[in-house]
Every structure is written in C-alpha cells, then in structure tokens.
C-alpha cells in the first residue's frame, strides 16, 4: 500500500427528501487496489458512487482525489481527472455504434492514447463494434459502459453491479478483466452482491447498511460478522 491513498472519503453525508441515504461514510482506496462495496439493496452503494463521480453532491463531508478535494467539481472534470464509472442501469449512447461510443470518450476524456481496438477486445464487443449500442443486451451495455469509462484513461474506476445477470462462466471473464485493470494501476471500487465473485478479485470489502459503514476489512471476516450476516447475507 502506498502512503497516500488515491481516493479518500471523509464523513460523507447525503439525504434525499427526509431520508438519510449516506451517513458519515469514510474510507480510502489506494492506486491499483480493488475494494468491494457491498450491502443490502438500498443501503447506499450506488449513491456512494454517485457522490464520488459527481452525479450528486454530498450534503456534508469531503471527497479527496489525488490529494485535492474534488466534491465540488462537475462530472466532466472528474472524468478528465481520472475518475470514471459504469452505471447500474446502463447508459450508453443508443443511436451511436459501439465503436463511436468509445471514440467519443477517447476524444473528450483527454486520453489521446486510448486504443479503441484494445478496449473493444477487453470488453469483448469487438464483433459488435459497428452495431448500434441500443441493440445490445443489458449486460453488453454494461460492458460498453465500462469501455466508455476505460477510454478516458481512468485512475479510479467505479463499477456498479457489472456482474449481475451473468453466469459463473461470464463472471470469471469479468473478474479476470478487472484484475487486469488493477494490475495496470487503476484503483477499482466494485459494487457487487455476488460474494464468490468478489472473493476472486479482492480481499478488502466495505459493507454498508442503511447508509452507514457496517464493516471494513477482509471479506471472510465480513461474512462472519453477525451484523453483516443479518443485514446482507441472511441465514
């Protein structure tokens, strides 16, 4: 672990209406590290990602990236700084081809060395490169989201449930890919409900429950923690 983390959340709060969705969330991620973010449905995982990627602004607390506070920057600046993400409900440019989807990000993400062909191969959509993105299946669209994120040359990648709906064989492919990305030095926060999958790629998880941090540490310890078991895994 390097001395200075790439990303640090400091006491982040977020409410919607009267409902506190994030409640004093603090954690840090180092370069090249994979962190699992888990928790029951509605516990605030996506919201955490939304706050880090600038989709929502935290009501209180700070997000520090590469040593500077970034929680007031607009999304496109974060993207250019190297924070990117996928969406739980994929959001591709439906009327553009798969290739164009990636080209846009390669150009505007200011990562001029992005190799579109290599990214297409990584996300396994080379065969569909000239198809319209809208005709992909939901799962393929999630991969395309990932490709779009990769094209901006991210340092931190937030991956929201990319494995949901994949079978074990396909999950294996994704796991390999994510590990490869981490090996390139990209830090990853991976939201996933499938513990076996997480287990393959990381030892460290953060467990959210109703917007609070229930647990932070190794995954196997988490699955023995009674609070985590009750809220997330079930008996």
């Amino acid at each position, binding site marked *: 672990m390097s001395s200075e983390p790439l990303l640090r959340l400091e006491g982040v709060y977020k409410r919607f209406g009267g409902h506190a969705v994030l409640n004093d969330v603090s954690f840090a991620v180092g370069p090249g590290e994979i962190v699992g973010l888990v928790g029951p449905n509605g516990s605030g995982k996506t919201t955490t990602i939304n706050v880090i*990627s600038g*989709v929502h602004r935290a009501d209180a607390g700070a997000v520090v990236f590469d040593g500077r506070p970034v929680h007031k920057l*607009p*999304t*496109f600046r974060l*993207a*250019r700084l190297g924070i*990117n*993400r996928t*969406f739980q409900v994929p*959001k*591709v*440019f*439906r*009327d*553009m081809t798969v290739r*164009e*989807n990636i*080209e*846009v*990000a390669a*150009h*505007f*993400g*200011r990562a001029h060395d992005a190799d579109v062909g290599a990214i297409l191969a990584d996300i396994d959509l080379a065969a569909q490169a000239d198809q319209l993105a809208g005709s992909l299946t939901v799962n393929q669209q999630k991969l395309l*989201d990932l490709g*779009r*994120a990769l*094209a*901006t040359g991210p340092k931190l990648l937030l991956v929201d449930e990319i494995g949901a709906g994949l079978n074990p064989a396909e999950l294996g492919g994704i796991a390999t890919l994510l590990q490869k990305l981490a090996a390139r030095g990209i830090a990853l926060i991976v939201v996933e409900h499938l513990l076996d999958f997480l287990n393959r790629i990381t030892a460290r998880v953060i467990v959210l429950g109703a917007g609070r941090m229930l647990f932070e540490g190794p995954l196997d310890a988490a699955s023995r923690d009674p609070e985590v078991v009750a809220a997330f895994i079930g008996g």
Partner: protein
Amino acid sequence: MRDATFMRWARPGAIVLALLAGAFALLPHVYGNQSLLFTLMTFIVLAQGLNLLYGFTGYLPFGYVGFFGCGAYATSLLVLHTHLPVLACVAGGGLAAVSMALVLGPLLRLSGAYFSIASLAASQILYFVVSNTNLADITGGPYGLKIEQVYAPNASYFSMLAVLLLATALAAYFRASRFGMALRAMKQDALSASMAGIDIVRARLITWLVSAAIAGLAGGVYAWNLSVFYPDAVFTLQISVFAIVFSLFGGVGTVVGPIVGAAVLYTLYSAIGISTPQYFQLVYGLLIVLLVLFLPGGILSLFSRRGIRVF
C-alpha cells in the same frame, strides 16, 4: 483521425453551399417576386438555425422566433439611432440575439417540453415588452418601426443569402466535427456524455448561442428588407412553428434536411396560397397531415430508408 472525418464531409458541404449560392443568385432572374424568394430564404435560415439546436442537442425551442424578433428590433433601432452602416446594424442584431441567449442561458437547465415552453414564454415576454405602449418612444410599441431610409431589396436579398450560407456551413461543421459528435452523445445521454469528459453545459451553451445568432442575423436582414414592420410580424409564433415544422419535415440532424424541408413546404405554402386562397389552409393542413402519415421520417427518410446516408 480528425482529418479523415473532416474530409469526408468537406466535399458534400462545399457542394451544398455552392448549390445554394448558385440557386439563389439565379432565381431572381427566373422568378420576379423577389420578396417571396427572400422569405423562402428566411425560412430556410430559420429552419437551419433551429436544426443546429434541436437537431444536434434535442432542445426544441418553441420560442425560437424571440431571437429573430430581437435581431430585427436591435438592427432597426441601431439604424434609427446610430449612423452605422446597415450591415453593421445587422451584425448588431445578431449580437443582440446572442446576448439575449446568454441571459436566457439558464433555460438550458430545463429539459424536454419544459424547455420548449419556457423558451416560448421568453419570446412572448420579449414580444409583449417590445410591443408595449409604454415603451412606444423607444421600441415603437405596437405601432412598429419604420426604417424606410435604408430600404434596399437587392442588398438585403444578398445579405440573407450570406446568412443562409453561414447557417449551412455551421450545420456542415456540426455534422462533421468532433464537436458535433459530442452533441449527438449528449442528446442521447447527457450524464454518460459528461462521464465521457464532455463539458455538456459549455457545449450546449455554445450551440444555443450559435443558433440564436443565426436567428438574430436573419431577423436583422428581414427587418431591413421589410423596412416597415409591426412587432407581431417578427415575433409571431407562426415563425417558430414554421421553422420547426419545416426542419422536422426535411429531417433534423442533417445539413440538407432543413433546406429541403423548408424549400418544399414553403413553396407549397406560397403556391397554394396564391392559387387557391379560399381553401389554402385546408389544403395546406391536409398535405402536411398526409406527408407526415406516409413519410414519417421526413423527406430524407426516402433516402436513409434505402440505406443512403444523408448529409
């Protein structure tokens, strides 16, 4: 890579520009009602200007006419109160429209119908303010303005042609450039586009200003050509509606679509209006309904349906 895409469109762009310039330079010699040709150009410009915004960003401004009127008034007031040459006054009209667009910039926070209607509201407010009796000393109020001293049908005709070429060139640029690609991406998913590193606020604002400038210039030249006009002549919503209908009819998001749409529908409009005035509206309405039902993708869909990519 940039050059490759650019070159792909540079040629068709140049061809379209040359055709337009040639056609409108020659037409007055063939057909004497120059004011009709002038109005036709005006509507092509407006359809194209609207296309720049709507076709490329998906923002449909019902109140597009507001910029047109703004340009018309600014130009006329400059003519009346300064000694600038007319063309400078027209440029001032374009600038006024851009300033107005800048003031109205916050409207871009809205989306869909909310944006459309809010822009309509803005144009109505402009209209009501300009035509208010209490401001008659400044704006001429409901009694309109007269700038007969600069009346020059030929010069204004060719100025409108210049604006038309400018608008078309801009559309070609939007169609061909990376900037245009960013706009298309934003139109489909703004959040994703900003995650792709696009400054959507800035890109949208630029497009909005450019589109306003075109309408403002057109309004300025139009006022110059009319030289006597009432506020409703340059603020009537009919102008917005025509611009929208014409460009949609031709096919938005393309360069030639709005040109073809406006040319066809406006020619029909004047032909019917002049030959069968009694049933004019009925025939015109019916034609539009039939065209939409049987040609729902606009005229250009005739081509794109056959796999021809339209410029």
